[in-house]
């Protein structure tokens, strides 16, 4: 069993980071909404919501970092500069790797922005 997945060529790797970003967004917002609508359901304080958001954020950032590392590998660790616009299999792979790396960066920042309110908001709206 290998720790790091084998390099595979599929368009789906491109969407990994944005999908993690979307899932993290939903977990944070839906989780907080459910807690604030029915706090008795969970039975813990609002700090539990903040801890949950922190955990979800750490997981999301790790997954995005992994996706970024895989993309960096697919991009050949930056040995070749863009634009990768030759009609060859090699350039297609490098282009996809580079695009995935950029999307991972965007998703990384977006996940941090999504989680940031939990640093400051300490209670539900009454």
């Amino acid at each position, binding site marked *: 069993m290998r720790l790091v997945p084998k390099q595979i060529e599929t368009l789906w790797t491109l969407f990994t980071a944005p999908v993690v970003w979307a899932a993290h967004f939903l977990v944070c917002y839906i989780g907080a909404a459910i807690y604030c609508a029915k706090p008795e359901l969970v039975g813990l304080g609002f700090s539990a919501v903040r801890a949950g958001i922190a955990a979800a954020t750490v997981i999301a950032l790790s997954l995005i970092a992994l996706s970024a590392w895989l993309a960096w590998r697919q991009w050949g660790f930056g040995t070749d*500069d863009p634009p990768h616009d030759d009609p060859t299999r090699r350039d297609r792979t490098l282009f996809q790797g580079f695009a995935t790396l950029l999307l991972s*960066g965007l998703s990384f*920042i977006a996940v*941090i*922005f999504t989680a*940031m*309110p939990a*640093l*400051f*908001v*300490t*209670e*539900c*709206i*009454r």
Partner: protein
Amino acid sequence: MGRYFSLSATSLLLASGTAGAQSSTQSVLEPAGAEAQQTAVLFWVMLSGGAVIWLGVVGLLLHAALVNRRRLAEKSASSIILWGGVVFPSVTLCALLVYALWLMPGLRPFAQASAAALRIEVTGRQFWWEVVYHPAQGPPVASANEIRLPVGEWVELTLKSADVIHSFWIPPLGGKMDMIPGRTNRLSIMATKPGIYRGPCAEYCGTSHALMAFSAVAMAPEAFRSWLAAQAIPAKSAGASGGALFLRHGCGSCHFVAGTDARGLIGPDLSHVGSRATVAAGILPNTEDAVTRFIARPDLIKPGSSMPAFDMLPPDDIRAIAAWLRGLQ
């Protein structure tokens, strides 16, 4: 940032448009409340930040177009894109977001440790505001289309709607909060400067939405308390004939006037209507002429309102009723 800018532009327009009816301010740029003060600072910080960035970008554009038209080497172009297009915007946005989020708990003191001494229940109706004061001691006091509050004290507003969605907003005092049928929303505000401020309905609610407003009067705490105590006692108006006509023509089936047989709850409470700055929910000055005109043809002044026209009454009766209402101080 765009939202704040358009809000203040709108409120400036509205303030100038209604200056004739009432000399009160409705601008978020002239804050007179704790929350509005922070919102105004946030607006100026965002505006200044945006202006600096805009000047920088335009300056670079002019530099590239007029001063230095040389092609950049690919390496330095890439580093400009990395630092100017990725790192700088990310860090700047992060800083502005942190600042705005840091303000949030203070902007909306949702669950203060100590309950506010005064709670005011405001119910939006097409097209007026039902107001009930719930002081810590003493019975509730009903009013309409005017909200008075003590300067320097947190007041809790309980916001409801009886028909459609309205939105409660006193721009110089704080942010707005929707009034949603079947739901109770809460808002805490604190006025920091005495004055009369105009509050518009901030959510389209029907034909006369733009004609639905109220005045918020921020008073010194002592003056406020004696005013509230006086409001709890029925007003005595001279011109008893107007009062008798008010009852005889059936006005009391919709309007409540404390101390009389007028016990209707459909229209605004008129117990102390003479003491209000405006009538017809913030759109007419409180004069005998205006009240007379409104009684005769409310549909002309406020299209879509529930009150029927009473122009079939003898003009002298209408005038006597208006004089009596004005006397309800």
